[in-house]
C-alpha cells in the first residue's frame, strides 16, 4: 500500500494535470483503452485487498465533464479521503460508486468483482453504504424506523413490520461498535452528531462493508468531530472500509490513511498523509499556490457603527431565542460570533438586519436608533447582509444573475431612474461582479439555480460587498465555498475592514471566526457566554464554550462579559505569536 502510494505521488508529480494521473503502477494500463482487458488479470491479485476500485471513471453532464478518467483504489479496512474543491467532482464520483449516476466510461470494482450499479439498491446489496452530507433521515420517524427504512424485516408472511427484530438488530450493532443510540427516539430530537450515527447505523444495518461519507464534519462541533474520528477508528478496526469526501485539509491529513485529490474532475494523485503537507495538498487541490494563513494586521478602530443594547428576540414559535445581548461593532473592526447553529445567532442577525423585530432592546446604527427601521431603510443606510440561507434569502433562484445582481439595490439611483431599471448598466455591474468574484461559469444570463452552491455564494458576497457598505453583516460567508474562493472572500473582508467598514461575522467554522475576528463572542442558548480575544483561546476551549461550558481562563479581558455593558475591544493586543502555537494543530491555518 505504502509503496503504491509513494509511487503514485511521484508518478503524479511529473504528470500532474495531464488527465492520466493515476497511480504509477497503472500508468501503462489506463493509458489506452484496448489494453485494459489484458491488464485486468495482471493486477487481479492486487485487487483482492482492495475494497473499492474505480478504474478510469468518466462521467459527463451536458456541457461539463464532471469526472475525467478518474482512478480510485481503496484498501480494505482503511480510511480513504477524497479531497477536492467544490465542483471538483468528488460527489459525482461517489454517486457513480453508489449507483446514482452511470459513468460513460470506466469500471466499478467492489470486492474484486466488477459491478454495474443501476440504482442505490444495487450498491446497497453489494455492500456500499452512503452517508450523505444532508442526512437522509425522516425527522418525524423514530431511529429504528429510519434505520430499517426500505429494508424492513417482516413477519406474518410480509403482512407486518417485525419491529422487535429491528430493535434487536440495532442494539446488537450499537453494542458492537460502541454507539449509544436509542432506537425509539424520534430523529428530530437528536443532536446532529447522533443523527450522523443513525445514518452510519442505517448503512451498517444493510450490511455495508464500504461506507462513503460525504463531507461528514460540515455540520459537527469540534467535539463531535473527535467523536466521529473515534467512530471511524472503531469501524475500520472491525474491517469496514471508509471513504470520506472533504474539502478540508486538516481532516484529510488527520483522519485518513490515504488521500486522493481531485481537481476539475481529474485525479491529482493519491498520497499518504505522512508524506505530504498541507501546502502540497492545497496546491494539488487548487492548481496553484494557496496562502493558508490569514494575516490580519492590527487595526485602529474608529467610531462605533453598530450598537446593540439588551436585545431580546423571540423566534417564530414564541420562544425566547436571544436573551438580552449587548455588543458594539466599530469601524474597521471584525466582530465574530461563534456558536453551534440554532443558539440564537439567526434571530439576532435578523433583528439587526431588520428581518425581525426585537421584542426588547435598542439597535443604533451610526448614532441613530434604527430599532424600528424597515429593512429598506437599513439597506439604504449602508447595511450589507450576506444571508445564511442563500436559496431562501440570498437569491431568487429562477432569476438570472443580472436580475439577482441588484436585489436590494433595485431602487439605487445608479441602476434605476424614475422607477425604471437601466438594464444595460445593471449588466455591466453583473459582469464586474462575475469577473471580480470569479463566478463560474461566467454567464450572466444563466438562472441562479443553475450555479453550484459555492458560485452562488461568491456572487452574493460580491453583490453585498460591492454595495459600498459601512456595515457588513456576514453569516457563514464561506459556507460551501472551496479553498481558493474562501481565501478570496477572507481577503475581501479584511480589505473592507482596512477601509474602515464595520463587520459582524457569524460562522460555524471556528478557524474562520478565530482568524478573522478582532473580538469573538460565543453565543450559547441566546446569550453571549463569553467574549474572547480570538488569539488567546484555543479551539478546544472554544468548542467547550460553544457547548455551554464556561472555561476558567486567566487571560485578560476574556472573562465573563455576558452581562457587562457590551463587549469592548482590547485594542491593539493582537498577539501574533499565538498564531504559530495554535497553527501546529490546524488552529489558525485555513
Amino acid at each position, binding site marked *: 500500500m505504502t509503496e503504491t502510494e509513494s509511487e503514485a505521488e511521484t508518478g503524479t508529480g511529473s504528470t500532474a494535470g495531464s488527465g492520466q494521473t493515476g497511480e504509477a503502477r497503472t500508468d501503462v494500463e489506463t493509458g489506452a483503452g484496448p489494453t485494459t482487458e489484458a491488464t485486468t488479470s495482471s493486477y487481479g491479485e492486487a485487487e483482492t485487498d482492495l475494497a473499492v476500485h474505480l478504474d478510469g471513471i468518466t462521467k459527463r453532464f451536458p456541457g461539463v465533464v464532471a469526472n475525467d478518467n478518474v482512478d480510485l483504489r481503496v484498501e480494505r479496512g482503511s480510511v480513504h479521503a477524497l479531497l477536492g474543491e467544490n465542483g471538483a467532482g468528488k*460527489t459525482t464520483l461517489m*454517486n457513480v460508486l453508489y449507483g*446514482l*449516476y452511470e459513468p460513460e466510461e470506466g469500471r466499478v470494482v467492489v470486492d474484486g468483482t466488477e459491478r454495474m450499479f443501476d*440504482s*442505490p*439498491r444495487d450498491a*446497497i446489496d453489494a455492500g456500499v453504504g*452512503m452517508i*450523505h452530507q444532508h442526512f*437522509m*433521515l*425522516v*425527522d*418525524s*420517524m423514530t431511529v429504528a*424506523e*429510519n434505520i430499517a*427504512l*426500505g*429494508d*424492513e424485516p*417482516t413477519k406474518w408472511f*410480509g*403482512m*407486518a*413490520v417485525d419491529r422487535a427484530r429491528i430493535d434487536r438488530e440495532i442494539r446488537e450493532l450499537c453494542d458492537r461498535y460502541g454507539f449509544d443510540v436509542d432506537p425509539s427516539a424520534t430523529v428530530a430530537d437528536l443532536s446532529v452528531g447522533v443523527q450522523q450515527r443513525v445514518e452510519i447505523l*442505517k448503512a451498517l444495518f444493510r450490511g455495508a462493508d464500504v461506507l462513503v461519507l460525504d463531507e461528514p464534519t460540515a455540520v459537527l462541533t469540534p467535539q463531535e468531530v473527535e467523536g466521529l474520528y473515534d467512530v471511524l477508528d472503531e469501524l475500520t478496526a472491525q474491517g469496514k472500509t471508509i471513504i470520506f469526501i472533504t474539502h478540508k485539509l486538516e481532516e484529510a491529513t488527520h483522519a485518513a490513511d490515504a488521500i486522493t485529490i481531485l481537481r476539475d474532475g481529474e485525479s491529482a494523485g493519491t498520497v499518504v498523509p505522512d508524506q505530504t503537507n498541507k501546502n502540497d495538498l492545497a496546491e494539488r487541490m487548487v492548481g496553484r499556490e494557496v496562502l493558508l494563513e490569514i494575516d490580519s494586521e492590527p487595526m485602529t478602530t474608529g467610531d462605533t457603527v453598530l450598537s446593540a443594547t439588551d436585545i431580546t428576540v423571540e423566534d417564530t414559535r414564541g420562544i425566547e431565542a436571544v436573551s438580552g445581548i449587548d455588543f458594539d461593532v466599530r469601524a474597521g473592526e471584525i466582530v465574530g460570533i461563534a456558536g453551534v447553529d440554532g443558539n440564537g445567532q439567526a434571530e439576532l442577525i435578523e433583528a439587526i438586519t431588520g428581518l425581525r423585530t426585537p421584542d426588547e432592546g435598542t439597535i443604533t446604527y451610526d448614532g441613530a436608533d434604527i430599532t424600528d427601521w424597515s429593512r429598506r431603510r437599513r439597506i439604504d443606510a449602508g447595511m450589507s447582509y450576506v444571508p445564511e440561507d442563500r436559496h431562501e434569502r440570498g437569491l431568487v433562484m429562477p432569476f438570472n444573475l443580472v436580475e439577482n445582481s441588484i436585489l436590494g439595490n433595485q431602487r439605487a439611483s445608479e441602476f434605476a431612474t424614475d422607477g425604471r431599471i437601466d438594464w444595460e448598466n445593471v449588466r455591466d455591474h453583473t459582469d464586474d461582479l462575475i469577473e471580480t468574484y470569479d463566478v463560474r461559469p461566467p454567464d450572466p444570463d444563466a438562472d441562479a439555480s443553475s450555479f453550484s452552491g459555492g458560485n452562488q455564494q461568491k456572487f452574493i458576497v460580491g453583490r453585498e460587498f460591492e454595495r459600498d457598505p459601512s456595515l457588513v453583516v456576514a453569516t457563514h460567508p464561506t459556507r460551501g465555498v472551496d479553498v481558493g474562493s474562501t481565501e478570496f472572500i477572507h481577503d475581501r473582508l479584511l480589505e473592507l475592514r482596512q477601509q474602515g467598514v464595520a463587520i459582524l461575522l457569524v460562522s460555524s467554522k471556528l478557524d474562520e471566526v478565530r482568524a478573522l475576528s478582532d473580538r469573538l463572542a460565543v453565543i450559547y442558548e441566546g446569550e453571549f457566554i463569553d467574549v474572547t480575544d480570538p488569539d488567546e483561546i484555543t479551539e478546544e476551549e472554544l468548542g467547550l464554550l460553544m457547548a455551554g461550558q464556561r472555561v476558567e481562563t486567566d487571560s485578560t479581558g476574556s472573562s465573563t462579559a455576558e452581562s457587562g455593558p457590551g463587549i469592548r475591544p482590547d485594542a491593539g493586543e493582537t498577539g501574533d505569536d499565538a498564531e504559530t502555537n495554535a497553527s501546529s494543530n490546524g488552529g489558525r491555518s485555513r
Partner: protein
Amino acid sequence: MRKRLGRARDTLAANPTATAVGIFGLVLLFLVATPASWQTSTLRLAVPIALAAIGGIFAEKSGVINIGIEGLLIVSAFSSIIAVHRLGDGGATMGLSNLWWGLLIGVLVSVVVALVFAVVCIDFKADQIIAGLAIWLISLGLAPFVSRIVFGSPNTAGISRFGNVTIPGLSELPILGYLLFDTEPQVYLMLAGALGGWFLLTRTTFGRWVVASGENPKALDTAGVDVRKVRYAAVLLSGVFAGLGGAGFALGTLGTFAGGGDTAINGRGFIAIATYLLANYHPVGALLGSFLFAGLNSLQTALQSAGYAIPTELIRTLPHMSVIVVLVLVGRTRLPDAAGEHYESGED
C-alpha cells in the same frame, strides 16, 4: 379571545391522548344520549366522510395532497347507481348481487379518476391543488351530464338499497349490537376500512414508505425505494377508499343520485379533508371525527324536521361552520414536510 383559543389549542396539542380520549368520550356520550334512529343515521352519514378521509390520509401522507376527493366521491356514487340501474335493479349478475357489482364499478371508476390525477400530479408535475380542483369540477359537471343523457334529468332513478346484515351473537350486545353488528354493508366497510387503514399505515412496510415519501422522499429514494411507485400506490389507494365511500353511500344510504347543485355528495369530500386534518392523519381518529360531522348533519336534519323557526339555510351551514370552529380549536395540523412537492429521483 385569540390568546384563549391559542391556549386551548396548546392544551389540546400537548395532550394528544387526552384529546383522543375526550373525543371518544363525546362520541360515547352521543351514543348513549341520543335516540337510536339518530345514531344509525349518523353512522350511515359518516360512511363517505370517514372512507374519503382515510383515502385522503394515504395520499397526503405520501406527499400528494388529494383535494379532488370530493370528485372521487361524486363519480363513484354516480357510477355505482348507474351500474346497478343498467345491470338491473334488484337482480344479480354471475351469482353476485348487482348492488355489489355497482360497488365494484363505483370503486373502479374512482380508481381510474384517481389514476388520472396521479399521472397529472406525479408524472406531469401539475400543481396538486389545481389538479385536485379540476378533478372535482370535472366530476361536478360530468355526473349530471351523463345522468341527463341516460335518465333525461340530472337526478338518477332510484334503486333498492343495501339491506341490513346481522352478525349472529354480536348483534345481541347492548347499543353496540344494533349499531355495529346489525347494520348495512357500507358501515361494515367503513369500520373495516378504518382499522385496516390504521394497520396498513402504521404497521406495514408500505405504510412506512408512504410516511417517508411524504416527509422526506429523498431519504426513501436513497434507501432504494421508488418514491414514484409509492406515491402512485397511495393515490390509487385513496381512489379505492373514496370509491368505497362514495359507492357505499349511494347504494346503502341514498339509493339514488341527485346531480343538481353540489350533487348528493354536497361537500362531504371537503369535510373529509377537514376530518383527517382534525384527526392528525390517524385513520381511526378520522373515523371518530367523521362521527362528529355526520352527527351534526343528523342534528341539522332533525332541527329542520322539528320545524324550529331558524332559517334552514342557516341550519344547513351547521356542519360546515363546525369544521371551521373545530379546526381553529385544534390548530394547524403539521402537514407532511414534502406534501405538495414534486419529487424527481436523481436530482442533486
